[in-house]
């Protein structure tokens, strides 16, 4: 057959080529997704939304959970803890809870639940209760009893409820495949837990830093058998572990007040680093061949960000006066945020300070690009971590206001999208939709509200 190349065919070819370069993020399998908050560019993703605009669906979520939604195919998974009593509402704002504001110990029976929602409609596909009892641990007045984001490998969904010490795997039909009791451990401050589990290949990694019996453990994803466990000399932290794949090896990186530690897949400590603030919360991320770790408790003089090169071993802590060494590409002693995790998007390292300020640094060198820029003078605070797509940075306040900022070396505030309700959970992005969880609802935001 004679081949004929017509202008129309050429145009179609260009179109196909162009479409193939637009790879939308299809799955969002765990906390902050596959690239630490960065979603693939997708023209279908929304720039504006409100309670009435671009809402594909909004569902009421029972109970309270600050875990993020995760998405795999047509499945949207969320976790929550549902009390049988009226519980005090979480309180917005930036504060260091002491005295009356410290801990909240509920005596009411709670149900710990995993929910699978239909991507298109938000309909509940199934809801599985994993435990029912009064919480054995207390929590800070802003925290929930379901703050760990679940994780999936596309075959099973894994949950960790630190409040009750439960690790479990469910299939996509909601059947519990295995469950393990790892102990409900109350930290000294009793502010509750929030370290999300991590899946890498056939292992599920769980970290619980609590001052009493801190540990990291690896479980077989299929059987739930504990493969290894390592005690951690750590106080309470709320930073989740990440996997760091690079040319030399694959590491599990954990950040903590005592030390940043990297573990090999068999549990051996590869390297460690001292010099974090109190109460480490931000989750590390990997980009540009570096892994970034940070912490920023405001009451600590040291609130560092470290950019670490691959291949380290032993103690790579900076000596006094140093800002780099062979394995620390750059460090900034006062850049770390308290609750939010940083974002690397393109060439830049973005920091959202909890009080609504954005800073931008060169991701490779740490060189300041722009200093503190205000997102909002009156926001209650920023706890959810920022995300990015389509050349924009997004930061959502506890008030439910999302601020859009132009990505790149110049600060430009592009707009604000508001939803009702308090937000601490980091949103998810998948298949052209943005998922935002408030204290009471889950939204799927999509252009035109399309289903």
């Amino acid at each position, binding site marked *: 057959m004679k081949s004929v190349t017509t202008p129309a065919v050429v145009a179609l070819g260009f179109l196909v080529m162009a479409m193939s370069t637009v790879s939308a993020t299809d799955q969002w399998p765990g906390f902050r997704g596959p690239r630490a908050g960065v979603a693939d560019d997708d023209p279908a993703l929304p720039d504006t939304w409100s309670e009435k605009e671009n809402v594909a669906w909004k569902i009421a979520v029972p109970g309270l959970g600050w875990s993020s939604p995760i998405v795999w195919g047509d499945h949207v998974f969320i976790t929550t803890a549902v009390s049988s009593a009226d519980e005090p509402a979480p*309180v917005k*704002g*930036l*504060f*260091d809870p002491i*005295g009356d*504001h410290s801990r909240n110990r509920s005596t009411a029976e709670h149900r710990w639940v995993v929910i699978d929602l239909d991507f298109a409609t938000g309909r509940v596909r199934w809801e599985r209760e994993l435990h029912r009892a009064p919480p054995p641990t207390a929590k800070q007045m802003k925290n929930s009893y379901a703050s760990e984001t679940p994780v999936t490998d596309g075959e099973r969904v894994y949950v960790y409820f630190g409040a009750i010490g439960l690790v479990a795997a469910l299939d996509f039909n909601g059947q519990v495949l295995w469950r393990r009791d790892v102990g409900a451990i109350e930290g000294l401050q009793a502010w509750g837990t929030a370290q999300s589990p991590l899946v890498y290949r056939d292992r599920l990694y769980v970290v619980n830093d609590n001052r009493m019996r801190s540990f990291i453990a690896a479980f077989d994803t299929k059987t739930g058998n504990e493969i290894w466990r390592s005690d951690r000399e750590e106080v309470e932290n709320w930073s989740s572990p990440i996997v760091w794949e690079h040319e030399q090896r694959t590491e599990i990186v954990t950040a903590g007040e005592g030390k940043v530690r990297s573990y090999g897949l068999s549990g051996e400590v590869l390297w460690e680093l001292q010099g974090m603030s109190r109460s480490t919360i931000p989750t590390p991320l990997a980009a540009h061949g570096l892994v970034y770790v940070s912490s920023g408790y*405001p009451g*600590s003089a040291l609130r560092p960000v470290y950019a670490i090169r691959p291949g380290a071993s032993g103690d790579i802590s900076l000596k006094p006066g140093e800002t780099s060494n062979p394995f620390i590409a750059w460090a900034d002693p006062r850049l770390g945020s308290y609750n939010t995790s940083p974002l690397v998007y393109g060439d830049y390292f973005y920091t959202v300070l909890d*009080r609504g300020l954005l800073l931008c640094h060169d991701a490779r060198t740490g060189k300041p690009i722009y200093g503190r820029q205000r997102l909002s003078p009156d926001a209650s605070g920023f706890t959810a971590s920022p995300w990015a797509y389509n050349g924009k940075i997004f930061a959502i306040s506890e008030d439910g206001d999302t601020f859009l900022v132009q990505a790149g070396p110049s600060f430009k505030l592009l707009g604000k999208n508001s939803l009702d309700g308090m937000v601490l959970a980091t949103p998810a992005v998948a298949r052209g939709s943005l998922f935002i969880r408030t204290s009471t609802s889950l939204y799927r935001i999509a252009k035109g509200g399309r289903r």
Partner: protein
Amino acid sequence: MTRRWPAAALLVIGLAAAGAAQSVTLTPVGSISGAADLIRIAGTRAYVTSGKTLTLVDLTDPASPTRLGAHTFPDLIWGLAIGGDMVYVAADLSGLSILDVSNPRAPVLRGSLKTPGQAKNVTLAGTRALVADHVAGIDVIDVSSPARPALLESFFVEGFAKDVVARGSLAYALDQPTGLTVFNLTKPGSFEPAAAVTLPVPIPLRAQLVVSEESSTPAPRVAIVVGGGPLQIYDLTRPEGPVHAATYRTQGPALRVALQGARAYVSDGPQGLQVIDLSVPSKPMVVGSYKASSPVRDVAVSGSLVLVTTGGEEVLILRQSP
């Protein structure tokens, strides 16, 4: 009001070591019974806080103080500022509240504003109130309409904003653990302070900043930071550029401090009240003290009256001389 103080405890010691500085004699003249955390004086009125409650006390006759009215706020009172007939209260998570005390027997809440953080103290700068708002920094709030206080902007501080003092066109902010920052109030919202210094000794959760009033007296202008450790004294000869003058340890924990002229009055816990001369800020000298039967927690000075809260149980009214 009770009047109970042991005669033996009345005494006051002027220290010979005071050198050229004049010794101070302190004599108990009365007391205000009841729980007391913080104490302030304005005119002939004392303002006493206990937990969430503010109580007004008439001091026209210091030997016989009279309780007037009281108001209970939604949250713990960390600090207050008095401006005419209004009292501005920093009450933790509930933020800033404005209490009308024109009728001191029946104070009325005029307005309140939930601040983004945790209100730790408040100071007045004309029609603006500045609130040390913990994680949220220093809030600037328009209080020209007490019924509708409005957040204008905020100043960034590195750590937990613990205290703020306005003097003229400047605001001095204290943040935990080691920040003393000066802001120019004529540059609202600026992230760049006029000056920032790092305290040599980190401050704990409860810390206080006092700054000399602008005056024509020959007393040197200073800023003092306390909070359970030493007095950290800064020379404000150049108001926008604090210079560390001394770090001075009292015998006790130096919980809070009040300034009058060149004298600092330090509530020194179990060591009682210490009066320290700062005529030369780099050379503080104790010129008087008073040992109470319970730890001294807070202090306020007005004219010849010195009020101290003791053990959280009462307020002692002392008269100083000279």
